[in-house]
Structures are given as structure tokens and as C-alpha cells.
């Protein structure tokens, strides 16, 4: 199977969650900012953790750890905001740590393994085999659509 259609990104903005490296298409990233104070949203879906005022633009923050079914971030460790553009305005993804922008290499791309189950399966486009680790590419559209396939 040709992998070109599945890895359209030429450059990936990378970040870490629980020491796992993830990446999203750098084109969809508006900016990366440090932790901002947020307004709580009672009754919101579990992975939506607050609202940020980004220079007059109201941005919904999604806790990626929860979205991907990972354990909560340890107390005292502040997340970073990866603000991504979407049709419905900007959305911020909360991550542990920011990595470099990586050139994607088609040769090393593989679709997610069949054994990958759970919410992550739907949210990951595939993996790049880096020298020392795997870089999982997230499907941004699906990640921010928290109303679908929420566990």
C-alpha cells in the first residue's frame, strides 16, 4: 500500500506525552505558547479542560493526555499549549513538552499496527520510524472533534 496519501505532511511539529513522541502537521499549528490560566468549563466533555483568552480570541483547550487515554499529568508539572487552526476557530492542545520540527521521511512511514486498539487507534494516522524512537502522527481533525468516539 502506498503511504503517500496517509502522510501528507512534509514537516511535523513534535511534542511529548508520557515520554512518547507525537507529531502534527506543522501547517496546522498557529503557535506554541507556554501554560496559560484557563477558565473551567463545568459539564464539558472530559478531555476539554478550559478556555484561554489568546489576544481576544477565545481558544478551547483539550488535554491531549485525556484525549489519548493516558494518565493525568503529575501535580505541579505545567503543560504547554500547541494552538492549532481548525474550521471552527483555534483549539489548543495541552502537551507535556515541545520537541523539534521534524522533516518527515516517506520511507519510514507506516500505518498504525493492527494491534493498536482503543481511542488512540482512531486518532493516529501512523508512525514514523525515527532512529531511536517512534513518532506517532496525530489526526488533528479527529483529535479536536471531542464529541465523537469519546470513551
Amino acid at each position, binding site marked *: 500500500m502506498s503511504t503517500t496519501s496517509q502522510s501528507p505532511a512534509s514537516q511535523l511539529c513534535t511534542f511529548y506525552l508520557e515520554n512518547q513522541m507525537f507529531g502534527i502537521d506543522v501547517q496546522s499549528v498557529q503557535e506554541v505558547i507556554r501554560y496559560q490560566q484557563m477558565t473551567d468549563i463545568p459539564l464539558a466533555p472530559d478531555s476539554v479542560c478550559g478556555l484561554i*483568552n489568546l489576544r481576544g480570541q*477565545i481558544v478551547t483547550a483539550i488535554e491531549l493526555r485525556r484525549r489519548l487515554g493516558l494518565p493525568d499529568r503529575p501535580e505541579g508539572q505545567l503543560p504547554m499549549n500547541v494552538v492549532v487552526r481548525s474550521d471552527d476557530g483555534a483549539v489548543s492542545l495541552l502537551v507535556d513538552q515541545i520537541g523539534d520540527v521534524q522533516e518527515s521521511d516517506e520511507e519510514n512511514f507506516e500505518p498504525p499496527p493492527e494491534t493498536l486498539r482503543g481511542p488512540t487507534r482512531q486518532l493516529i494516522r501512523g508512525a514514523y520510524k525515527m532512529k531511536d524512537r517512534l513518532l506517532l502522527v496525530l489526526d488533528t481533525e479527529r483529535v479536536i472533534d471531542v*464529541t465523537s468516539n469519546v470513551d
Partner: protein
Amino acid sequence: MTIEDDELIKDFIVESQEHLSDVESQLLTLESQQDGIDIALVNKVFRAVHSIKGAAGFLGFEVLESLAHRGEEVLNRLRNNEMRPTNLVVNTLLKATDRLKGLLDSLETSNEQDVTEHIVALERLLNPDSGPDSGPDSGIVEIPDDESIEEATLETVPERVCDSAAQRKPTESISSVIHDAAIVSAVDSTIRVDVSLLDTLMTRVGELVLARNQIMQFTGELGNTDLLRTTQRLNLITTELQEGVMKTRMQPIGNVWSKFPRLVRDLAAICGKEVRIEMEGKATELDKTIIEAIKDPLTHLVRNTVDHGIEKPEVRRSTGKPVEGCLTLRAFHEGGQVIIDISDDGAGLNLERIKTKAIEKGLISQEQVARMQEQEIAQLIFLPGFSTAEKVSNVSGRGVGMDVVKTNIEKIGGSVDLQTRPGHGTTVKIKIPLTLAIIPALIVSCAGNRFAIPQVNLLELVRLEGEQTTKSIEWIQGAPVYRLRGRLLPLVYLRNVLKTNVASETPQDVINIVILRADDRQFGLVVDRINDTEEIVVKPLSKQLKGVAVYSGTTIMGDGKVALILDVLGLAYASQVISKMRDGALVDPNGRAKDADGEPQTLIILGTGTSRRLALPISQVARLEKISKEAIEYADHQEVVQYRGKILPLIRLASFLGLESNDTSEDDLLNVVVYNENERSFGLVIDKIIDIVETSLQLNHPSAREGLLGSVVIHDRVTDLVDLPAVIRMIDCPSLSQLTSLV
């Protein structure tokens, strides 16, 4: 095609559409002026069509040009008084206008389209002898004047001489010149602006308002007088700018209404009715987005009125009404809202048919209907899937009607109310906010978060302190209520609705209640703190939060933090103040009908036990009797007495409802309330009869107990309203029905 051409064509389309939309209403006005037409008005129409013709010719849209040209010729006859605006003439012109619009909509292919039908019809008007439609216009001949001379000769229209043309006064041309000058100056003082530019401006002003709010807060903290002065100035200018920009987006409601005269005229013709439309308050202004949003609901209501509301001429004549029905549209400002009334002098709603239809469609049960007030029955037409039209017509009655109207209006924060008087007509009252972008709101705090509540939903604020906090809040079967001037107000704790467990900021001895209105229902929202009122800029909820019903939007507060705007209707649903079903306003969740607010009813107040009070509507009571205990006999284990030659089964109401009974009557007489239902009589035995009162029923709490409708406050006492039909149903054992059927 060059860019300039594109621009030209775009302008041509916009201008021509504008011209045509005016032409329609102007033609209708002309039609009503059978004798003595307004020449200035004809001139207006003529000029509009003429400029379309000119531009179309210039741009090479020949078909458009030729149609406009024929129209212009007919108008020329009209303005020369050689033709009268008869129904036929106006009809033909209107149809030609429609066709012109159609051509404009598909401009690229307009030259390939066939308009012969319209051209022939217009020519027949110009030359009545050639067709069968010769009307009263024959015998009138034309002296062509000014610019139409060349065209008329070019088209070789047969011309005859007429003496009426000679009657035109020489001054007329002068006045029309002056008129032209006035139009030119009006054009000079206005410019066409793209709506998206205005939208962007509005957004920017919204952000400016936010920045202003923030600066004001900082200035307050710093206490520098110079800065304070500048800030106040900034404040003033921002407010003025905001008002100014908002005004640019305001449009008179007449823009939507302008198409109604034509609609009504055509519909009335289809339905074989005579309908006149009257409009008041055309100049009432509304935000553009709101105008857009109410366009369809209004059109639907107008259609409905003509189709269902107004009777056929013969029916009207037989009931002594003028043959011509009247549809009135009224718009005016009231309390920061715009009110639109759509009323007719038609037959009013057929309540019986509505009842049958609603039951037939399973929207409501027989028992529920039986207990409903007339106005409540009328509201049934707002239920989804309701349509009384006997057959589906192409005018209205596809079963998607009033509920869509209601939903659409509620979506923009408005409300719909319907009043009907059989035989006298129906009035639909729509209330809508002026604008949606910037609204006044009350800021409250709860569980560490701030929330904005739109001022339109706000009724009043109540603060309870000290021992009031425990004394004034009562509990009815687990539901907290507060007595607000004698009425039971259900309380909703925002903290519980939001399911937060952050500790309250308020001391235990203070309770803040925000009294809100949602869909004609009132409830008290208990919050931690009431902060202030503020003008807030409404920003939409992101997609991730659309599913959370209790919020309607977000906003940025003075300190730069984000706050959520509470959706009062959503809150009411979430806390079950209003049931999720659309008919929640009429029927409580247990399916028992409620009495409308404010409808006075006479109740008989009964006492049972030491302090419990019960109430029955007196309309259900046949007589009050005292019956000797010795008169009680038994029939099949049922207590009965002989009463007026019949057997009257006795029901011990208190024990039946599981309430404590305390028979205080020393003499062996029983208080019996005699109740009739379907030719059957029952005697309700009660401890004492206390009073008979007339009161407005506000049923605050549906009771979970079978046989009780709910609780009301009467004479400062909580009183349970007895559901008599339910009681009868519960005891309706076969033996009893046998017993009563013998009677």
C-alpha cells in the same frame, strides 16, 4: 471579460435587484389607486425599469433589454394617463418583473432564455385590439413624449391620438425634474458597503469594548486621576462608536415586509379570498442578522394567516364581517426588545379541531386536553408535527409549521405567543432582541467561576441573610422552593447543576437567588455571589462545547479572563424546571395538565388531619352536603349513602390519598363533597371545609403522589391540589362502576 466588466456587471445586478424589489411594492400601490394615480410614483417605476433597460443594453443582455423595454412602454402609457393600472395591467407587469428577476439571477444564460410569453402579454396591453383582452383601456391613444419617442417609433407600436394626453399639465414635467434632483442628492449621500466589512467592524468594536473594560479595571486599581480622565473619555468614545457601528447594521423591518403585499395578494388569489394587508412601524430597526433570521418565520406566519386564518368571502359575509379580510403587521420597540404582531380578523383557531388533531396524532392525551384552558389548546399548534390543514396545499400545511417558527425565533433569543378569539381572529406576538452581538448581562460567581446571565432573562435578585436562609426555603418532596410574594418559586442550585464540588465562597448565612424567566416559567437560580452587570460581547461556543446545553456562548471579562454565558432555557431543562419535551410548558412530566398562570379559578379549600390543606376546583363540585354517619350503608364493601333517590358511593379522601385524617366533627355528621362525572356521582368525605377562594393558580410543584396535581400557595399556606379524575380512576373498580351505573 475584463475585471472592470465584472465590476460593472456586479453593480448592474445589485442595482437592478434593488430597483425591482421597489417596483413590486410600487406597482401594488398603483393598483390600489384606480382613479387618480400618483404620477410621481409611476415615474419612479418608469425610471427604474428604464435604467435596467439602459444598462442591460449597454452590457449586451439583449433579452433582458427587450423585456424591460416592453415593460417600460406600458409604464409610459400609465404615466401619460393613457392606461389605467387595472388588475390585468399590474398582474402582467408583476409577472414581467418576476421574469426580469429570474433573468438577473441567471445572467450568463439570459440571452438564451425565452421571454416571448411576457413580451406578448405586454404587447397585448399596448395594443388591445390584437388580443382578446381588450379592457376599458381601449380608445386611449398615445402621444409619445420626451425620451420614449425614438423607442416608440423604432418598435413601431401602433399609435393613436388621445385627448386625455392633452390634459397633462405643463407644471408636471417641472415637478418631476425637481423630484429627480432630490433623488440624485439622496444617492450622493449614501454609499454601498459590503456587509462583510460591517461584520468585521462589528467584531473589532467588540474587541475594543473588551479592551476598554480591561483598561477601566486597571485604571480603577491604579487611582491616577489623569489616567482616569483619559479612560473615561475612551469609555465614552467607545460607547458612541459601538452604537454607531451597531446602527450601520440596523435595517428597518420594512425590508422584510416589503415582499408581503405581493405574497398576500397572490396567496389570496390562489385561495379565493380577499385580503388586505396593513403595516405599522415599518421603520422599526433591527440588527441585520436578526432581520435575516426572522424572514422565514414571518413569511410562514403570513402564509398561514391567509391560508387558514382568514375566511372565504362568502363565509365572512354570512357572519356579518367585511368581505375583505385584514392582515395587520405591527412592529415597535418595547423594553429593549422589538415586538412584532401579526394579527388577522379571521375565524380564529378552531380549538375543537386542534384538540382532535392533537389527540389523533398522539401529541397529547384525552384527559390532558379535557383539563386545558382555551389559550393552552391554542398553544398546541406549536408542538412538533402538528398541522391542522385538512389537505396539504401548496400554500401551507406540510406539517412542518409553527414548531419550526417557534424554534427559529427562540434560537435568536426571542419568544412567540399566540392569542385567539373564535370568530374574531388570531394574533401572534413575536418578541425579539435588538441585537445579538453585544448584550447587557449579569455576572455571577459560582464554585470559583464567573458566569454571565443575559439581562433579558433576568427578573429580579433576592438576597437571604441570617435565619431567613433556613426559614424561607421550604422543601416539597426533596425539591427546594422559595416563596416569592406568595408564589412558590422552584429553586435551582447552580452548583448542583454544574456538578462542581469546589467549596462555596459565600458564608453559610447568605443565599443569593437570581430570579430568571425561561419560556414563560420562572425559577430561582442560587449562586455563590452576584457581581455586577456588564455589557458583554457574545462569542460563539466552540464545536467541542456545542453539546453542553447550559451554555449559550463565551465572553471575555474586564480582567481578560474568559467567562461562560449561561443559557437560561438550557439551565431550566437541565434542572428539570421545564421538561425536555416541547410541550413542557403545558403538561408536566407525569403527563398531567397544568393550569395556566394567572387564570383565576375558584377553589374550595378543605382541611384534613391537623394542618394539611387540600383544594378542589369548584367547577368540579356539584354540592356540599352534611350526611349523618348513621346513613352510611355498605354495598360490596363500599361505603354508600342514599342521596336524592340514588346510591352515592363515599370516598374517604384523606385515607385514600394516604394522608392523616382527624375527624373533629363531634356531631355525627360527615362533610361530603358531591362530585359528578359522566352522569356518575361520588361523595368525597373530608374532615372540614375551610373556605372558598378565587385565586390565580400557579402550580409550582407537580406531585409525585397519585391523585394530587401538585402544590400551590393559597392564603400563605401550602395547599395540595386534588386531581379528582385521577382519584376516580384509581377507585374505578368494577363493583363501583356497576353500582353507579345502576343509578
